[in-house]
């Protein structure tokens, strides 16, 4: 499995993703500059967190027009794995590769903290090493993490098992108190209908070593 970590101007989780994959897990990973358009040889593309283009206009609104994104869309259409984290999730929604949108946190502040996620769907390439119902401890760090979709879209997501992660208690209970940003139905991550494009707000690359607070994130990189 060869991983490509996309780098847009303003991205900053690229280094952390590379570190988790390469230094911690020993995987084969390379950076892809947003102006490069050759994605051959990659099996999984990662769109990392950060403030691409300063989050100007809306997070991801400008990055989705970057030269590499047309290739990412082609890559996804051909079944390649695409993993959007935080700003990456926002870019995928702006590009239409995932439904819905990420709005400003309901409390209108940036929030950086550890959260618990319940795995809702373990039948994806990203959750194949987790169990349904398993609780993972992974941090969030964002201003705009409030997942929103209209009622029809939400219904479709639920019906198709496209909701992959929900914010929950350490015991796995999905409650209002555990929702850190107002996301509808405590949705922390979703997958497309085809099952090859995933977006999540929490940062698995930050949960890569016990020294840093936990290593649950390591389970989520497709193998």
């Amino acid at each position, binding site marked *: 499995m060869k991983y490509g970590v996309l780098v847009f101007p*303003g991205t900053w989780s690229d280094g952390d993703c590379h570190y988790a994959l390469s230094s911690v897990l020993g995987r084969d990973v390379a950076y892809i500059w947003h102006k490069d358009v050759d994605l051959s040889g990659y099996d999984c593309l990662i769109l990392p967190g950060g403030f691409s283009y300063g989050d100007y206009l809306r997070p991801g609104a400008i990055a989705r027009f970057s030269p590499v994104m047309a290739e990412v869309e082609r890559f996804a259409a051909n079944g390649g794995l695409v993993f959007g984290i935080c700003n990456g999730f926002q870019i995928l929604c702006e590009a239409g590769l995932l439904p819905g949108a990420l709005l400003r946190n309901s409390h209108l502040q940036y929030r950086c903290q550890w959260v618990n996620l319940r795995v809702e769907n373990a039948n994806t390439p990203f959750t194949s090493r987790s169990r349904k119902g398993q609780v993972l401890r992974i941090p969030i760090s964002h201003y705009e993490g409030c997942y929103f979709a209209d009622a029809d879209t939400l219904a479709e997501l639920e019906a198709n098992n496209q909701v992959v992660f929900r914010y929950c208690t350490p015991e796995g209970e999905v409650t209002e108190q555990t929702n850190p940003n107002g996301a509808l139905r405590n949705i922390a991550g979703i997958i497309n209908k085809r099952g090859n494009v995933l977006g999540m707000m929490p940062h698995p690359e930050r949960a890569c070593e016990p020294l840093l607070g936990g290593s649950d994130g390591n389970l989520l990189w497709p193998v």
Partner: protein
Amino acid sequence: MPVSQEILDEVALSRAEYDLIVERLGREPTPVELGMFGSLWSEHCGYKHSKLLLKMFPSTSPRSLIGVGQENAGAVDIGDGLAVVMKMESHNHPSAIEPYEGAATGVGGIVRDIFTMGARPIALMNSLRFGPLSDAHNRYLFNGVVAGIAGYGNCLGIPDVGGEIYFDQVYSQNPLVNALCLGLIESKWLTSARASGQGNLLMLVGADTGRDGLHGASGLASRTFEEQKELRSAVQVGNPFLEKLLIEACLELVQHDWIVGLQDLGAAGLTSASVESAARGGSGMDIDVLKVPRREQGMTPYEVMLSESQERMLVIVKKGCENKVKTLFERWDLRCDIIGQVTADGLARVREGDVVVAEIPVKLLSDPPLYRLPASKPAWLRGAQSLDLATLPDLAPTQAGPALLRLLGSPNIASKQHVYRQYDHQVQNNTVVAPGSDAAVLRIKGTAKAISLTTDGNGRYCYLDPYAGGAIAVAEAARNLACSGAQPLAITDCLNFGNPEKPDVYYQLKECIRGMAHACRVLGVPVISGNVSLYNETRGQAVYPTPVVGMLGLMEDVTKHCTAAFQRAGDLVYLLGTCDGVGLAGSEYLALEQGLVKGRPTIDLALEKRVQRTCLAAIRQGLLHSAHDCSDGGLAVAVAESAVIGGLGFKGRLPMEGRLDSALFGELQSRIVVSLAPENLPQLEKIASKHKVPLTKLGTVEGKHFAIAGCLDLPLDEVGEAWRGGLERALGG
């Protein structure tokens, strides 16, 4: 024709200084030249009132690579071919006018000081002071500053790993916003901000130049002002996205061999960047303002040279390499223009096309007059220092619990989680100990090491005894590092004071520095960089003398770090340090519960050193489960915090020979509360005995209550609620 007072006021120069300029130049300065003198000879840039005093600081150590004043920040060797670059700076006056942008550009400015040396910024910290939150204007400033720090820092992808926030009436019109940045670099890439080599080119990179911030940091910081409203245009506006691009591009640039130096544009903009780098290089420079890209029309040479538009860097490029440099910056979509060159004539020459509008010897601009003013112990100090305990009623045991809850919930002591959860404190995957303990701990990838970082300062102590207060600031920072398991390495400081032309204030400045310097020498920690912010006063009311110490520590083995939280039920809780003394002088208890700011804080630096050594040795031997410094609120608060953060109860007794209020809330110095497994006690006793440090049993970690025999027994949840919710309640939440 004699220059008018109005013009002198605009450039914040005294008539005597103007006369000195005329004398040294041999003529009257042109308007552009006068503007350049005004900014470079300002207090902020010139350190006129502080430079002579700052010489008291020890500034070198075996590990220091770059000392005070040599470059934009200080640097220390941490082994493995690596160096840490560190600096702290104030942005007080802009934040009082426009809190969001003032704080944001404060972060931006300090980050530039770090990456201009080729170091990747890896951590931020902030030390903040505001007036009481009961006042709407102070809430406005507080919220604006916190949002500004978050808005700028989070966008850059640099973790904000801690700091401190205090509230006091004296800061009401004069908030303090001190921003610290730390960078990591392979020592071989350390880049200088030196313009040398005749014919080498000066290139300006980053944002275009506008009229924002004219006379900003330099003019604002050089005098007190009564009417703040009209000064809003003097506050700079930040663009963190642009800065992020600059960081990546500059870090890439320094690894090539194309440049002689790199200098960021901060206070006094292009004037200080070009003159200071020329001064360091012993050369001159020639700049054509028409080559500077502008964002506004009709800008005069004066405006171009003094603009404080943010996110701009000056690159001193080796002749012949300019196209390579330009290509690199263009890859990052950054604007890059040749604006001048390095000369050998030692002159700072500014032209507008063919017309020379300024031509001054660099040495003259970079050599402002330095003042040593009269210092006299303030008449009110003796009265302030006398605390008559006989007239102060002690606490009755039944009052102890409620008093503890009030202290824990007071904004100065309460948890600051409301603030730091708004800052990304994890990005870059180095944060081992996040905000909420005594010091932040960041591991160094590729090594077994970690660095520790803290900021500390107590204005109230310095007000009551500047010398002791200064020493205590240094000692407390080192103590916090010791609690995390790190050996103190270096200091960067921010000295925040009132108007130094007043003998009272100059006395405070001098004595604080003297006290700090003494503690630095006893504890073996040099000051490698720093900043002075004077004139923090409004309508004659100055802030407390508030020196803030930012201190860096090193631990050889990251796994041997320690935090403030109790870890295990059954552990023993001990006090390292003394209980001799009352410790109520300048205490939070005295101020909050008795409405008094009185007494004379003291510190025994020899004891402090031994206590820190004991704590460090114990942590290195893996004996301790927690270590927490006793500071604001005293012993009861320290033990309560360890319990609440750990989520584990405490049962025990505090040494109580004299007054109850002193036993619970006295702020005697050099004390650390530790917890450890019972089987490790004999070894801890051995170490304490070896260092002649008193060791007193306080109790055990147990249950879900916080109980001190003879005076209080509270459910841990209630104690936790008081501490966790204090700040939000004060904000009206």
